[in-house]
């Protein structure tokens, strides 16, 4: 049953991908949905067995790579983190599959789309259930590959191609870090198996290894390298630019990959490696810094974007920041809780956005929407539920996890905790602001769009509405229902899958922080929402007046252009690398030095020497005669062993003379030919 969870999506992908032509779009959709559905049911059973009945399941399938010390086997480990992820992934994937049958119903390549979706699900399941780093890496690269294929699904569009390449390459940058981390782990622990590594970590606390000739603490080094991997995959500050661009893909893809599953892989990696991170203070420190900054900066960018999907993408980025800094504060279970909850309401938001876009004839710009409240009431409800859950409205899903994260950040009582806490609170304010700005622009204000679009607008059909409804139910209730299970005090659920060092534990402190601090996130969120409504509903005049202030225009441009991060990367990093690639490695090295020393230079050399030798034969008899004379003298000297130069020059230097002669010949003649 456990293996079925993983391999049924692959089977669905196989049939839909290779036989989609014969199966018809509906048939291939049916097969893939059936596969995912059964996988979902089985994951629920697995969740019951592993999570609730506390019996983890390990399946050692067959050896994959086995040589001397190094062995990577096909092994699947179903502990509580894995089954928690399995249920989330299969559930979201199932709903996205169902949604896409309707959303993509007019697309000519629907079987291919369904195949990619199923393949993605397979790789994600492979990632979360891996029992060693190598197999995790397989899933990691697999989801990267599928994200490429899916972003690039409409491959005739230039922007989609560029976005897909960008996603692939920036992910690869992180993957280099992950690969190095795995290598380092293998060097230190001589294995890539999770259970062995994690049980050995305490014995290697002060172990030091060399990294680029620098002596580093092994655990910190491994932790940071793995974190680079998750920076790439989870779109943390620095490597985040691919995520908003990845919105070029179809909307269900954004919901599946860039909201619920793929980007959570980075956070999942940190959670999975919790026994390792717990032994490295400095790695945790860096993680908190990065996570908190990401949460803040993505939230500020989200404030002033005008693309419906990009706002949601930046909110994903921001929420991932929350998860990451929760991990850095050693509250892995809270991070996992937020991860699961976030998957539901973010998928809901994305699919609702898809419904809006579908209704408006693929219009994505928020400034050309408006007035959809009367036209799409159902989607509006779903959007509001999703947004409220996202901003942590009390007693919705987001509230339970987000507040827990912020409370724990406060309860750390040190600089880093306070830093994360305040950035998190400010981000919560901004999150509420842009969520309501989004709702307001899309649904509430008077229509700004084209009349034809508005006339043809229709609410979500059944196959699109049903996933939305289920997700909204999940967004409302899941947080409340699973709170005690995931982060309740002393919950047995995690069952050794997550390790938190006793000195880092702060769940109990978090329960006893001042009540006013506990109220802060909610108050700030509500303030943000109220400010948003106030500004856009009552005080449009203020907004209009702001546009005449140059400072405000400057801030607007700065935030709207995403802190100029793309500009920075393109101008300084991308451009300089391209220049290096063209002018140095290509022109100077490949076409320059190597050509001169290699084939082209030798050809020039031999032809030039040949020409000079030929020119000796001038046709003039007296020159021939002198040459003969000189030659005879040389032969005589040679025969009589009479070495004329011997007293003056060491014989061993002759070799150098000859080589030098050849090269003077070469350069001399070359300049002559080039002047012609």
């Amino acid at each position, binding site marked *: 049953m456990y293996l079925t969870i993983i391999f049924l999506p692959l089977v669905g992908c196989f049939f839909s991908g290779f036989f989609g032509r014969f199966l018809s779009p509906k048939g291939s959709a049916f097969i893939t949905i059936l596969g995912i559905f059964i996988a979902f049911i089985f994951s629920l059973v697995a969740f019951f067995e592993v999570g609730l009945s506390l019996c983890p399941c390990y399946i050692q399938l067959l050896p994959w790579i086995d040589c001397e010390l190094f062995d990577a086997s096909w092994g699947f480990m179903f502990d509580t983190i894995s089954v928690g992820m399995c249920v989330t992934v299969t559930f979201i994937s199932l709903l996205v599959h169902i949604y896409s049958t309707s959303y993509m119903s007019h697309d000519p390549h629907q079987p291919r789309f369904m195949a990619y979706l199923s393949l993605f699900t397979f790789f994600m399941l492979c990632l979360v259930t891996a029992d060693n780093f190598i197999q995790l890496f397989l899933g990691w690269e697999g989801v990267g590959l599928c994200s490429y294929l899916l972003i690039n699904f409409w491959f005739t569009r230039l922007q989609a191609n560029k976005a897909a390449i960008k996603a692939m390459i920036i992910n690869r940058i992180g993957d280099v870090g992950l690969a190095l981390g795995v290598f380092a782990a293998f060097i230190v622990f001589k294995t890539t198996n999770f259970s062995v590594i994690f049980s050995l970590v305490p014995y290697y606390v002060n172990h030091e290894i060399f990294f680029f000739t620098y002596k580093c603490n092994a655990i910190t080094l491994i932790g940071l390298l793995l974190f680079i991997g998750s920076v790439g995959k989870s779109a943390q500050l620095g490597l985040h630019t691919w995520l908003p661009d990845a919105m070029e893909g179809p909307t269900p893809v954004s919901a599946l990959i860039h909201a619920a599953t793929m980007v959570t892989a980075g956070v999942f990696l940190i959670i999975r490696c919790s026994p390792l991170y717990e032994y490295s203070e400095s790695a945790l420190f860096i993680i908190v810094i990065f996570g908190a900054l990401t949460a803040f900066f993505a939230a500020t960018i989200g404030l002033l974007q005008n693309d419906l999907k990009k706002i949601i993408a930046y909110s994903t980025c921001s929420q991932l920041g929350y998860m990451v800094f929760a991990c850095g504060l050693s509250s892995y279970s809270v991070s996992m809780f937020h991860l699961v909850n976030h998957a539901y309401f973010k998928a809901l938001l994305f699919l609702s956005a898809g419904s809006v876009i579908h209704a408006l004839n693929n219009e994505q710009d928020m400034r050309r929407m408006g007035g959809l409240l009367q036209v799409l009431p159902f989607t509006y409800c779903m959007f509001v539920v999703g947004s409220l859950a996202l901003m942590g409205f009390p007693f919705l899903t987001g509230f339970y996890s987000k507040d827990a994260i912020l409370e724990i950040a406060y309860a750390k009582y040190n600089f880093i905790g306070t830093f994360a806490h305040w950035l998190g609170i400010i981000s919560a304010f901004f999150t509420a602001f842009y969520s309501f700005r989004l709702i307001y622009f899309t649904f509430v204000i008077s229509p700004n769009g084209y009349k034809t679009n508005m006339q043809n607008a229709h609410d979500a059909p059944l196959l699109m509405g049903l996933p939305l409804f289920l997700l909204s139910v999940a967004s409302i209730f899941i947080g409340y229902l699973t709170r005690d299970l995931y982060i309740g005090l002393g919950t047995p659920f995690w069952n050794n899958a997550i390790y938190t060092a006793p000195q880092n534990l702060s769940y109990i402190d978090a329960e006893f922080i001042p009540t006013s601090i506990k109220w802060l996130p909610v108050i700030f969120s509500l303030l943000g929402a109220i400010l948003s409504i106030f500004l856009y509903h009552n005080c449009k005049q203020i907004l209009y007046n702001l546009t005449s202030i140059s400072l405000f225009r400057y801030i607007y441009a700065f935030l709207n252009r995403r802190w100029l991060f793309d500009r920075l990367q393109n101008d300084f990093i991308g451009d300089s690398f391209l220049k290096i690639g063209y002018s140095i490695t290509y022109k100077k090295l490949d076409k320059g030095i190597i050509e001169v020393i290699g084939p082209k230079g030798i050809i020039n050399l031999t032809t030039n020497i040949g020409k000079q030798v*030929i*020119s000796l034969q*001038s*046709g*003039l*008899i*007296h020159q021939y*005669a002198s040459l003969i*004379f000189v030659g005879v003298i040389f032969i005589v000297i040679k025969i009589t062993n009479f070495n004329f130069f011997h007293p003056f020059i060491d014989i061993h230097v002759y070799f150098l003379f000859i080589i030098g002669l050849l090269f003077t010949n070469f350069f001399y003649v070359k300049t002559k030919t080039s002047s012609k």
Partner: protein
Amino acid sequence: MFSIDQSKYLFVSIVLFLIGVSGIFLNRKNIIILLMSIELMLLSINFNFIIFSVFLDDILGQLFALLILTIAAAESAIGLAILVIYYRVRGTISIELINLMKG
């Protein structure tokens, strides 16, 4: 036998030979001078043979000298014949103009 230093005779022959050689490659005008230089070299070699034949008291050197004499005569005859034909074709016997066979 009165003792005469052999090297003085040899010196004459070598000087004659070198004059012949330098006649070949210092001469840039006239092909007849070239033929004459060759004759001079052959003469110096003949001279050499005879000197050694006398001093070593061996007849073989004089035999070779006779042989070279005949060969030199034959060679100059053939050379002059070539020269005549060449002159008939080109109308000149200047060495500087004999450079059609460049490499």
